[in-house]
């Protein structure tokens, strides 16, 4: 306690928080069948999460277990997501795969679930490490951040002002990627490129639209925009394609092929990237079953076989990386449908 007798951040830090991952992994344990795995995306009705969910469903069914999906109808309804965690706990599922709206808010509920013997996997968006058993990362944050800068740099010839159009200011994954983008930009080969602004479109089409307009008006010399969010890149592309900036200002980032096909074809966008959300969901489902079967516990260094996807190793803090993202351009975009 401090001099005045209150509890401060320092006190809490000193207490330390130890989350024990109990039990021991048995890599050779049989895959259990008849389990129930609950998927809890940030938002139902979101095409991205629906695709991920379909991947998860395929994996879980293949392994002889039951898949179910619940979730809030709004991506900012954190309390709604918490009560869905509670509901899944209440329904005694064997494992749940969660894409967390908030790194902290779900913690209490998730810990409660783990106390009730439920295995927790996070995918797409993580919580604090002690609140889940494993996290399936869509690609390493570092890879994503750096490659997006590289993609844009090629398109604008390593020269000129660039800006970022992000989602919500609080989006954890966005912020991590942006950090790595900044790190990449420190490299001398980008000395002629300047990051002039980061705008937030809140994953809302209209807001992203107006933020793009603002970026272009404020920085007449802008050469390129990175939008590491599917909603943002789509809105920015739609604006650019209907404006005088079409083709002059480059746009890249994370988008789905179906969303972006038109803009790639009409020349608004040259190339962008994304991982395959279906594979992300599939890996989440397989990891959940592996955890529930006792084949892994989420400790660093453990390995397991994820069906046809191959062998995966658990990294630091229980993070499992899906692999490198795919770059889409006019040549290959028609090979994908999601």
């Amino acid at each position, binding site marked *: 306690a401090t001099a005045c007798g209150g509890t401060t951040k320092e006190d809490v830090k000193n207490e330390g928080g130890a989350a024990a991952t109990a039990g021991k992994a048995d890599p050779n344990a049989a895959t259990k069948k008849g389990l129930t795995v609950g998927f809890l995306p940030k938002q139902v009705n979101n*095409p991205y999460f629906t695709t991920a969910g379909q991947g998860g469903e395929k994996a879980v069914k293949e392994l002889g277990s039951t898949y179910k999906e619940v979730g809030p109808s709004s991506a900012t309804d954190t309390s709604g997501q918490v009560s869905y965690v509670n509901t899944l706990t209440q329904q005694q599922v064997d494992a749940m795969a969660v894409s967390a709206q908030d790194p902290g808010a779900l913690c209490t509920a998730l810990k409660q679930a783990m106390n009730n013997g439920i295995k927790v996997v996070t995918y797409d968006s993580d919580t604090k490490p002690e609140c889940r058993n494993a996290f399936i990362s869509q690609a390493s944050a570092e890879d994503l951040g750096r490659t997006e800068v590289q993609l844009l740099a090629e398109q604008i010839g390593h020269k000129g002002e660039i800006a970022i159009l992000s989602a919500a200011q609080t989006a954890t994954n966005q912020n991590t990627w942006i950090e790595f983008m900044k790190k990449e930009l420190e490299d001398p080969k980008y000395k002629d490129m300047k990051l002039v602004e980061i705008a937030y479109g809140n994953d809302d089409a209209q807001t992203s639209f107006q933020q793009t307009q603002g970026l272009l008006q404020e920085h007449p010399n802008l050469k390129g925009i990175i939008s590491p969010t599917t909603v943002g890149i789509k*809105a920015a592309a739609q604006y650019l394609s209907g*404006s005088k900036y079409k083709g002059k200002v480059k746009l890249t980032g994370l988008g789905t092929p179906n969303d972006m096909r038109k803009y790639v074809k009409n020349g608004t966008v040259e190339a962008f990237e994304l991982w395959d959300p279906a594979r992300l969901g599939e890996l989440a489902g397989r990891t959940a079953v592996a955890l529930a079967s006792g084949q892994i516990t989420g400790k660093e260094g453990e390995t397991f076989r994820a069906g046809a996807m191959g062998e995966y190793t658990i990294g630091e803090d229980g993070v499992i990386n899906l692999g490198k993202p795919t770059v889409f351009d006019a040549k290959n975009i028609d090979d994908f449908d999601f």
Partner: protein
Amino acid sequence: MTVTAPDRTPVTDVPRSSGTRLVDRVFRMRELAILAVLLVMIVVTQLGNSEFLSEQGIKDLLLNATILVLVATGQSLVVITRNVDLSVGSVLGISAFAAGTYLQGGGDSVPAVLLAVLTGVGFGLLNGLLVSLGQVPALVVTLGTLYIIRGIDSIWVGSRQITAADLPGSFVDFGSGGVRAVPYLALIALAVLVATAYYLKHFGSGRELYALGSNPEAARLAGIPVRKRILAAYTFCGALAGLAGALYLARFGNVDSGTGNGYELTVVSAVVVGGVVFTGGSGSVYGAALGALLLTSVNSVLPALGVSSVWVLAINGILLICAIAVDRVVALRVASALKKRNARHA
């Protein structure tokens, strides 16, 4: 009882120069106040960023306002009758998707727009029937239909979405095209706005909307078909929300189950900022349109000035409060001037 000659001077022969001047002037002054705020804002921005009023810049300003202007026009009709329609956002979303699915299936643009409008009309009728026949508080009913329509929308749409690629190119081009700096969409909104304003001022049924908002009981006693008028106002509001849905599709080329979510607060703000009074009976659609223009312009002005988007929300809110405060002060001034003028013992 002895009758003394009244000391009131008889009314002079010449009627005061023109029609319903005084009442109008009250409205007009309030609209001028909003217009002034808007102009000041735009001029300041232009000084800070010369790109702001470029052809593209003006086009963007107008395009941004278009959809809100349409919905706010419909909403103000409902608010004038002392009601409110909170479900406009949901209606916009579902009609945009309806038009989208039709176009996706290879349909033509005109029937698609009609389909959106008809969807809007349908839900407008539903709201109108519930409010006027049930004679129940509009706020609750339309909050209810807001949820119901949104729910139906998301069950129907699921995780599907309609993207620009699914739409005919001409439709999407129409959404961003225009005559020089004036987008086609803005012309549509303007036409609707002017027609509505003309109707409200020059037609008996339009004035009756004001009357029944001003004093519903008196309206009933005056033999105004109250239910019919309210029903009509809601239907019109729904129709415009539907039309706005179609234009949204053309403009953004993208609709999913979340489209129009939370739009009701923006619309209500625009209407309120535009000086349409929530207790009914007063306000004009021009005011509401100006309010819409003001609100959307704020969203363009701040990024154009390079204000970090972190500040946008706070500034937005404060501007909104300032706008209604200015409006209020002007209204009070006008009222007291009116009172002085009418005091019989000056």
